[in-house]
């Protein structure tokens, strides 16, 4: 046991003292913060610019009804051919041009045919939101015209329209909003992604450290003093402690940043938590609502689950990574074994992204959040939506049992592999090693 402690200490210190580790610890939150800032800033910047669109309306039907909104502005021109219009519009440096051709028959207009003849012409491909915005506007106008044509009273139709905005509430009686849903999706995805990244980053760290010992040929000296299993576990635990240190530092930094942000907006997390009367605070409502949704999440459950799934998921994958490191002589050779263990993680991530927001308690989500190779990632995506404690306990129990089984296999391969040099082993070789 004393030996394992020594190994853990060495692994931990080598990792933590490593310059790139220090750099990553400090820079990552800064880079993420900067990225978020950039994305937000650039998006708002992009949306602000006014888009002038020339409308060549040869029918005269839209001049009164088609109105600009948001960042779109319409300029009407009449009675031009398509080619003439194009030259004018191009010289004016507009965002684009809408061309509506002349009608053949003014008395009995076929609006369906008309809708198909409307064209949007521009230099660059226009943004999807602009196009769908314009489509919406034309749809509405043409539908109304059609109603009129067949003798329906538009006012009556509008009066009889009913708009539904469901008020949401959980069984525990907590009110939820749409923002809650969005935050759950985003938060779940972030948690799942983080776990996925951590498992890969720290797992491959273990693998590299095993390969290093093998290529340095120090391995034989070490295992003449300690058992290979001790070395492997010491390595895995030491690296995971280094990882936890990093996560802890990021958490503290994140907490500080969150506090700065909230005080910048003008509210404190306590205020949001204690009172529902956020409306009284005079601030832009979206960030406030977002923060409120954030604090509505089962944060304690998320934190505990995250640490458990991080540790267990990492331990599970790190043992596999350690076995791979022992089996090969250098990192390039590890590719053939990396693929099969990456697949479940990647499936977990992408299937999780695809299915969990849609239906957090659907069959596929539930299965993947119990299957040990995908459960850390998928369960973390589900937990913000609320997963019963029993389900979490079952999933974690399966994970723990699998972990012990995998460690047993990994240790066998590790024990033999670290002393094997030269030939790149096949799966058949690995199977044979299990029986040595």
């Amino acid at each position, binding site marked *: 046991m004393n030996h394992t402690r*020594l*190994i853990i200490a*060495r692994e931990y210190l080598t990792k933590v003292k490593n310059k790139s580790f220090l750099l990553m610890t400090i820079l990552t939150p800064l880079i993420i913060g900067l990225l978020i800032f950039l994305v937000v800033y650039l998006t708002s910047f992009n949306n602000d610019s006014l888009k002038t669109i020339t409308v060549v309306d040869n029918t005269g039907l839209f001049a009164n009804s088609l109105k600009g909104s948001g960042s779109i502005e319409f300029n009407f021109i009449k009675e031009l051919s398509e080619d003439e219009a194009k030259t004018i519009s191009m010289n004016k440096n507009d965002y684009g041009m809408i061309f509506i051709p002349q009608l053949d028959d003014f008395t009995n207009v076929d609006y369906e045919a008309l809708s198909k003849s409307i064209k949007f012409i521009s230099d660059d491909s226009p943004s999807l939101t602009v196009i769908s915005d314009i489509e919406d506007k034309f749809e509405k106008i043409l539908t109304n015209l059609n109603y009129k044509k067949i003798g329906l009273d538009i006012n009556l139709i509008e009066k009889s329209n009913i708009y539904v905005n469901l008020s949401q509430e959980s069984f525990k009686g907590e009110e939820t909003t749409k923002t809650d849903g969005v935050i759950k999706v985003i938060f779940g995805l972030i948690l799942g992604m983080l776990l996925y990244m951590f498992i890969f980053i720290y797992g491959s760290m273990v693998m590299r450290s095993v390969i290093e010992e093998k290529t340095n040929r*120090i391995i*034989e*000296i070490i*295992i*003449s*003093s300690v058992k290979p299993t001790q070395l492997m576990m010491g390595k895995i635990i030491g690296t995971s402690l280094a990882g936890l240190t990093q996560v802890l530092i990021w958490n503290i930094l994140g907490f500080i940043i969150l506090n700065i942000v909230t005080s910048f907006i003008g509210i404190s997390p306590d205020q949001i938590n204690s009172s529902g009367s956020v409306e009284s605070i005079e601030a832009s409502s979206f960030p406030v609502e977002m923060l409120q949704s954030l604090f509505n999440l089962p944060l304690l459950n998320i934190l505990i689950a995250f640490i458990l799934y991080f540790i267990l998921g990492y331990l599970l994958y790190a043992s596999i990574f350690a076995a791979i490191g022992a089996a090969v002589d250098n990192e390039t050779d590890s590719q053939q074994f990396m693929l099969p263990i990456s697949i479940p993680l990647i499936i977990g991530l992408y299937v999780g992204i695809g299915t969990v927001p849609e239906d957090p308690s659907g069959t596929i989500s539930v299965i993947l959040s119990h299957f040990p190779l995908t459960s850390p990632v998928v369960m973390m995506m589900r937990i913000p939506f609320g997963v019963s404690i029993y389900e979490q306990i079952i999933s974690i129990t399966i994970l723990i049992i699998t972990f012990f089984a995998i460690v047993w296999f990994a240790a066998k391969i590790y024990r033999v592999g670290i002393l094997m040099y030269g030939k790149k082993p096949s799966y058949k070789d690995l199977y044979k090693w299990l029986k*040595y």
Partner: protein
Amino acid sequence: MDNILIADSVSKEFGNYKALNNVSIEIPKGSIFGLLGPNGAGKTTLIRIINQISIPDTGKVLFNGENLNPNHIRDIGYLPEERGLYKSMKVGEQALYLAQLKGMTKKDAKKQLDYWFDKFDITSWWDKKIVELSKGMAQKVQFIVTVLHKPSLLIFDEPFSGFDPINANIIKDEILKLRDEGSTIIFSTHRMESVEELCDHIALIHQSNKVLDGNLDDIKRNYKTNTFEVALLCDNKTTLKSLINAKFKSQTASFRTLGDELKLNISLNANQTPNELLNFLNSNGQVNHFIELIPSANDIFIQTINNQK
């Protein structure tokens, strides 16, 4: 004589490959024991079993009369043939770590390291990384790490490889000194001249089997053919040669002398003593050169291996 280590019918298989087949050896306390054999004979497997890196399939190993167990790890020091240290770790830190893994306290390890670093005059290396050292320098560090915890059994696999002659000599002297201080040394090498120079016992392993073992002098006694290298100054070489051939077996030999002598390798027949030969030669000419041909470790090695084929 007391044996520090006894391997009793040790076998080890890897899949279908038998790496050791019923190998038994006894290593006397305080000896330098040469573990010899061609490449791939099974020496490393045996050494790994002694180091408890692998476990024998059958047979047992006794260390000081006890079944080999993890408590013995600190009594054994092992310098593997494939050397290696953590490249980016500092020399001192690394040596301390490895010593602690062998069960030394940090304080003890530091004290011993100071002694050895001082002895080899390498105290300035303490804060250097291994990558900054030359191969020979790293080997020295590795040697220190092997002997630091004063093990009663030391296993050196090709200890001189990578050293220049001067440093090889320093290491050789240290090995002899360790033996004099009471350590037993297992010495695995292909360099027969160092076997000749250092070993008092040997075991020869060939194709997973032990084919020869024992006291090196005893083995040489068994292998010697009672042949003498002789240079005689005489009047008529041809007559003398036929006279000798009538009584003994002889072969023309060539070696360097200062005169124009008759040079022969003469073998005794059964029941003849060296004195009989010497007296006979003495009465027929002037004996300038008379040496018993003792087989070298190299001869024994090659002969034994070839006999196996």
